């Protein structure tokens, strides 16, 4: 084919214009094809509202990023599938990877489901960035050397911080402890972590009651009665589904919380349902990685919270942050790798790049470790009902980074609890 001088000059001119225009010249200049991101999130059942918050956030994030050029010049397209049982979610994952041919799958909240999906992602060599899912078998990391699977912070982070704050605020007042925790590994490990940390801090306590309601139990009166009969002075509960508001309501009606202090490390998930009318004050209240009313919040968080609360008339919780973080980490990894290679990066290059990027997420800065486990910023504090909402906020905000709250790579969690330098 002969190229005329005029055609050649026109081409050089076009290239020069493209190079001069900021934000236009990018390795993906020739690729208008969307980056397809598969989203696996629960849309119904006990985790339905939680998943919905994450879905809303990832939609907001994609919209915002697309206005700013998408990912390395390519627009983001989201493909949704539902997280349900491990079997069905694995099938949904395969659909996203094999049929929809997405570039990356993000989502997953349940660790039980994540444990099933993660090995499939490794075997399919498909990139998976989890929102809240881990690959912890109990507290033990089941996939310490995953290549394609990026996991959330450890499940026990919120229990560690709540335990530390319980000691900080109530040391000397904790003598008789009681636990009401969901009857699965998360609840059992959190309760054990609380007791271990008290022991480590030299707080001598008597365990007066342990209650293990099944997730989704909506009549907790017998559990409340058992706790009341045990006369605790401190109750620790890592309940986090729709049963938490039920417990608080029934406990309040029964007078369970009179003269009793509480720690609710995962209460933020149910923030909109925890109404002031049945919520005592001064609870160690966990917001995990997003406290919507953070006084010194970043402009990014403020913009998101304002938009979210205006649109949905409720406060966002940490699942929004997890969803945003996953997408932002992927974008940062792709763009850094694209910049380094001068083209759209290969999957391996993206995987190598992601852990090197520090990302500004909704709740604060975060980064994936080299072992592909997230490190983010956590918020908890003492609750107050003195605000303009119909649910509690925090009167004191304590923030910690995940490196202070989770075991380092390869270490046993219980051993780490015994030997680490805890921040409080």
């Amino acid at each position, binding site marked *: 084919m002969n190229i005329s001088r005029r055609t050649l000059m026109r081409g050089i001119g076009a290239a020069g214009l493209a190079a001069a225009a900021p934000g236009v010249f990018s390795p993906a200049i020739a690729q208008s094809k969307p980056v397809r991101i598969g989203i696996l999130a629960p*849309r*119904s059942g006990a985790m339905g509202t939680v998943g919905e918050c994450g879905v809303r956030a990832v939609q907001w994030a994609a919209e915002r990023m697309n206005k700013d050029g998408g990912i390395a010049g390519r627009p983001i397209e989201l493909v*949704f*599938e*539902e997280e349900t*049982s*491990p*079997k*069905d979610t*694995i*099938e*949904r994952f*395969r*659909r996203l990877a*094999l*049929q929809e041919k997405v570039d990356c799958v993000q989502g997953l909240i349940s*660790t*039980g489901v994540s*444990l*099933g999906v993660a*090995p*499939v992602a490794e*075997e*399919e*060599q498909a990139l998976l960035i989890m929102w809240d899912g881990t690959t912890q*078998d*109990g507290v033990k990391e*089941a996939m310490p050397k995953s290549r394609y699977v990026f996991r959330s912070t450890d499940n026990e982070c919120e229990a560690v911080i709540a335990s530390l704050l319980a000691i900080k605020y109530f040391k000397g007042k904790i003598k008789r402890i009681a636990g009401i925790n969901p*009857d*699965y*590994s998360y609840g*059992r490990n959190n309760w054990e972590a609380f007791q271990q940390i008290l022991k480590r801090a030299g707080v001598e306590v008597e365990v007066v009651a342990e209650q293990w309601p099944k997730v989704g139990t909506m009549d907790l009166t017998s559990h409340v009665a058992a706790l009341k009969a045990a006369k605790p002075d401190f109750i620790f509960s890592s309940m986090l589904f729709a049963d938490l508001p039920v417990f608080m309501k029934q406990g309040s009606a029964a007078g369970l919380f009179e003269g009793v202090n509480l720690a609710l490390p995962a209460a933020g998930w149910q923030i909109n349902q925890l109404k002031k009318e049945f919520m005592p004050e001064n609870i160690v209240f966990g917001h995990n990685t997003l406290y919507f009313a953070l006084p010194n919040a970043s402009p990014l968080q403020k913009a998101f919270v304002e938009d979210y609360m205006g649109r949905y008339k409720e406060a966002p919780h940490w699942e929004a942050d997890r969803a945003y973080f996953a997408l932002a980490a992927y974008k940062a990894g792709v763009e850094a790798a694209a910049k380094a290679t001068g083209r759209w990066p290969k999957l391996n290059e993206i995987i190598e790049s992601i852990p090197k990027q520090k990302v500004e997420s909704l709740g604060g800065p975060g980064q994936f470790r080299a072992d592909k486990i997230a490190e983010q910023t956590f918020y908890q504090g003492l609750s107050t009902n003195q605000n303009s909402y119909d649910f509690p906020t925090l009167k004191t905000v304590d923030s910690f980074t995940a490196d202070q709250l989770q075991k380092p790579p390869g270490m046993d969690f219980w051993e780490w609890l015994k030997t680490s330098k805890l921040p409080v």
Partner: protein
Amino acid sequence: MSTPTSAPATVAPAVSPNIWRPSGLISFLVIIVAMAGLPLVASTYTLTLMVPFFGFAIALLGFNLLLGYTGLLSFGHAMFLGIGAYAAALMTSKLGVRSLELTLLVAVAAAVVIAVPVGFLCVRYTRIFFGMLTLAFGMLFHSILFKFYGLTGGDQGMRVMRPLLFGMEFEGGKTAFITGPFYYYALGLLTLLGYAMWRIVRSPFGLHLTAIRENAQKAAYLGVTVSRMRLAAYVISGVYGAIGGVILAVTIGLADPEIVYWTQSGNLVFMAVLGGSGAFAGPVVGGLAFVLLQDTVMSATQYWRFVMGAVLVLIVIFFPRGIAGLFGDAFARLKRGS
């Protein structure tokens, strides 16, 4: 043997295997042949959906021995899927035994050991009482799996490692394994077990079951040992369920308590009704339709459960003999027309 296909539907209830007997095996073989040729034309993803279908189809053949032929509706049959799944997990993850043949044997043995006492208690009752008892045992098993963390992994379940097929290790990723050698292995199992079930339902034992279903008292007068026959049917159906559970677990790579939850038992009932429990191949057709329908609806809308529920309602009201019944009627009309 040829039986009239124009028997009025009002006389025969939803369960009337006699009508479909001549075509039952042929329909089943048509499905098997279609599945054998599917890898030549279908996408990899479609093939990954078919392997769980094979697992369900095996379990449904057993389930239908109870429902379609004996007239007993089990609401806790997913327990046997779980027995198979956890047997696979125990063998491959805990004991390091990766032979699938050995795993299948262990699953069958475990199913028999559990089905005999459970069945002994359940088959003394019929109708809703049998359904409730099987549901209770299913949920009891679910609670055991859920609560015994040290043994079963609790809510997080147990990993199922990739097994050896006839002692052979296969290279490549999991998808290549599932859609390649394991696909044909599972299909082969389905064929063998389908043929075995065909022989069972046409044997004197199968006729006894049909007689029990039609009128247990009359059957007893004729010398049929009703309880023993029902127990044998329950044990056989349990064995089929456990084998189906092994196939499912290998495909998923995980055995978790969800697989035995009552909703999974409900899915088995749904599949049987969808396909038509009165026909030999009906539940197999129902299993295939269920897997494809759920996949399509789940991707199309987040309200997929509503759609699936609506489909079930429509089938029960308008097509009580399921998809197989529809095809049977159409085939009968064609035959009359010619």
